């Protein structure tokens, strides 16, 4: 295919006429702006883009995108999007979901979409809280979290969404953050280019019920020492002055952070998102501490595997390749197959 003509769309083309109704200051605004700003890059006509969401503050997202969109029910967006994507491979299908929507009620559909590698771009807005229902803990809230439903602290260990996705055979796994538009858009770009499910966790601030959850990753002066920006093919160093690096201690399976100065360059792990074995990305996903130190952002994993639609469409195409009759003739043939008898 030759280079397509540019549709010359702008962010404005992706703004719907609906008033945006998140709380003032909510991280969702920044994500919305970043997505709207990114969309023109896809160079896909608006009518071929669909946003499907579940329920939650984040799931209001489709209303604000001037594309096709469905605000469905709690947790079910990946399932609905799978049916759409399987029957309409010509569309660009995006799922917007929250930590509750995707990982609590919708956990099963999420992991199955990932293993199937359905061609969905799944954006999980992780604010580590239930926003819409006014502040209960979520499956990504830290242990001991005090919320309306856990007045003396929650008892259950949180999911690490990336570990879970990797355990579920995801082919594309990434993390980004609401406050860094450029990074967010770079991850969206990689997701869009991927064939199959792209799972993107976006750290998002809920300034009403979980304010500042990701502050260390955002505050000037601190964030550079906390955030690890993954770049495919590059040694993993970070810190304001690149003073930290990631190494893979011999004999171990996990990753560790060291002082760059005290480390031999060849010891520093060179990021490779394309390794087939998910063990590397899994090890990366375990790096951050509870205090958010050493939080990698960027594309953890992007490997090739045929998407679900490609496989099933190929099966359909193969079956239809032999067909020469009209559908009605085919049907007549089908109805009269097997043992028949005729009464005159």
């Amino acid at each position, binding site marked *: 295919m030759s280079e397509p003509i540019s549709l010359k769309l702008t962010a404005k083309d992706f703004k719907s006429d609906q008033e945006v109704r998140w709380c003032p200051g909510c991280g969702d605004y920044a994500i919305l702006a970043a997505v709207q700003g990114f969309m023109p890059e896809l160079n896909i006509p608006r009518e071929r883009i669909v946003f499907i969401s579940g329920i939650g503050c984040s799931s209001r997202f489709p209303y604000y995108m001037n594309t096709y969109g469905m605000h469905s029910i709690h947790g*079910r967006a990946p399932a609905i999007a799978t*049916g759409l994507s399987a029957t309409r491979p010509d569309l660009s299908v995006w799922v917007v979901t929250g930590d509750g929507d995707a990982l609590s009620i919708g956990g099963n559909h999420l992991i199955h979409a990932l293993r199937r590698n359905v061609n969905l771009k799944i954006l999980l807005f992780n604010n580590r809280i239930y926003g819409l229902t006014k502040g209960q803990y979520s499956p990504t809230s830290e242990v001991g979290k005090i919320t309306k439903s856990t007045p003396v602290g929650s008892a259950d260990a949180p999911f690490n969404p990336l570990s879970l996705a990797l355990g579920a055979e995801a082919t594309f796994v990434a993390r980004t953050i609401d406050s860094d538009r450029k990074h967010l858009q770079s991850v969206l770009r990689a997701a869009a280019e991927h064939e199959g499910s792209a799972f993107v966790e976006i750290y998002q601030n809920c300034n009403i019920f979980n304010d500042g959850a990701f502050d260390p990753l955002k505050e000037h002066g601190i964030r550079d020492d906390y955030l690890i920006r993954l770049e495919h093919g590059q040694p993993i160093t970070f810190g304001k002055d690149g003073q930290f690096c990631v190494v893979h201690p011999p004999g171990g399976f996990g990753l560790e952070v060291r002082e760059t100065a005290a480390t031999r360059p060849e010891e520093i792990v060179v990021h490779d998102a394309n390794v087939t074995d998910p063990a590397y990305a899994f090890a990366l996903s375990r790096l951050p501490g509870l205090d958010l130190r050493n939080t990698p952002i960027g594309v953890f994993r992007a490997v090739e595997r045929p998407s679900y639609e490609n496989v099933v469409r190929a099966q359909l195409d193969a*079956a239809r390749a032999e067909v020469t009759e009209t559908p009605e003739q085919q049907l007549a043939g089908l109805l009269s197959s097997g043992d028949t008898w005729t009464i005159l």
Partner: protein
Amino acid sequence: MSKQIRQLDRVVIRFAGDSGDGMQLTGDRFTSETAQLGNDISTLPNFPAEIRAPAGTLPGVSSFQVHFADYDILTPGDAPNVLVAMNPAALKANLADLPRGADIIVNTDEFTKRNLSKVGYQVNPLDDDTLAGYAVHPVALTSMTIGALADQDVSKKDAERAKNMFALGLLSWMYSRPYESTLRFLERKFARRPELVAANVAAFRAGWNFGETTEDFAVRYEVKPAKMPPGTYRNITGNAALSLGLVAAGVRSGLPVFLGAYPITPASDILHELSKHKKFGVLTMQAEDEIAAVGAALGASYGGALGITTTSGPGVALKSETISLAVALELPLLIVDVQRAGPSTGMPTKTEQADLNLALNGRHGEAPVAVIAPKSPADCFYAALEAARIALTYRTPVILLSDNYVANGSEPWLLPDVNSLPDLRVEFATAPNGEDGSTFLPYLRDPETLARPWAIPGTPGLEHRIGGLEKADKTGDISYDPANHDFMVRTRAARIETIPVPDVEVEDPDGDARVLVLGWGSTYGPIGAACRGLRQRGLSVAQAHLRHLAPMPANLGTVLRSYDRVVIPEMNLGQLAHVIRAKYLVDAIGYNQVRGLPFTAAELETMLEEVLKNV
């Protein structure tokens, strides 16, 4: 040696044996031969719940009943005239259903001490008076089969497994069935193992010849072809017919068919069947659960496909929240419920009609959908088409209530002319519909059908958002306006209530009946047979059968009120009766049985006679 030939107008045969004995196949073949001969037929398989319960036990018994006649029949028959019992368990499990005088063909080889004790026979029932009053034909089926195959190139195990063909041969002889199709079938089935073709054919012929030779079978029977409308027929089960109806709906609508399903007895066969029809562009997806299955189907509908999901009761319960979303989205969606006995897991291989309440009312909020039910195996084909028509025309979820009885039962089906099937083509929205010529109003309705436009992704200029929150009339924007909500709730109700459905037809050949029997779904056969029975005895009774449960036919109230008494037999505790009473304030009485089995015509006849006496 030529034997006496006796004419019969109808026969009911039940083949019964262990799950491993191939009784379903035997029954199927006998049915096929019978169909070739032009009899009317109705069949009823009966599987054990276990995959393969321990051999020789009562729970392991599998049976297949076939009723055939020289006139049109409506049920697989109340009681078998002939039982083929391949082992003691099969005899014990089925004996109670046999009327005295019935023929019983038993495989004596299996009446060993061990097998007898497995089912609690202290004494061999062939030896005491357990079978007094029956015409017992003891046949050493196993050993005769093995003997007949002595010079064949097959293992003893394979030889032994051919005993069902011996039985089939014998029965085919007894009822003078044409057996060419069976021979062809065996060739197809064992195409890769010619030695098994030879063995099974030999076993079949041995059975046939045994009938011809032995003294025990003095009479041979004939059942003449039934007078049936001309045309090409095939024998078909409800699940197969339903599947074909769905394929046909795809062809006639020109839409791709998408089936999202999670396996569940007795609906799984529809998934199996549809997954074979990829060349029709039918895409099937085995989802992770029922919620995903209906979700995917809804997503496919949203994208312009005919979205379908097939399941049974527990699955419908799980899908309920998503169906409610489909009601709000006003998109076509077909939910097939092949009912089984509940509640909970219940008796998964048994039949029941107890999901009507769930279909009509099992959603939160006011969430009306259309509900229809097929009345017989072949009717499943047309019911599927009708369900698709309503879903596509009125942009609504439609629940199709089949049940295990029609799903697995079979009957001859006069193949329709494909081009005479309803035209289901739909028009997608392609242009703005607002007064200003440029806005698109996703909830502006067709004044006649009250359907909203189906504007599928990919259509330029119609980008819009839909969702489960209440929508403003016309624009579809989120709305919390009280008056709008009231309006939308009533409009959604009206959308279903005003779907035009055919008037219910009353069968009252005598024209003077004072009692109306009203049914729905799979009770059609037994009710019809019972009414015939009464009429043959000079009693008048009227029969009406509902295909459309929501909305109901416009003339139903008038019909009901023109009888002194309305009786509603149902395989539940009176779910339709409840609706009828509420809607029409008619003192309809229910006749209810929840036994996991279809009604017998005889019991309905007895019950109705009682009712007739008291009007």
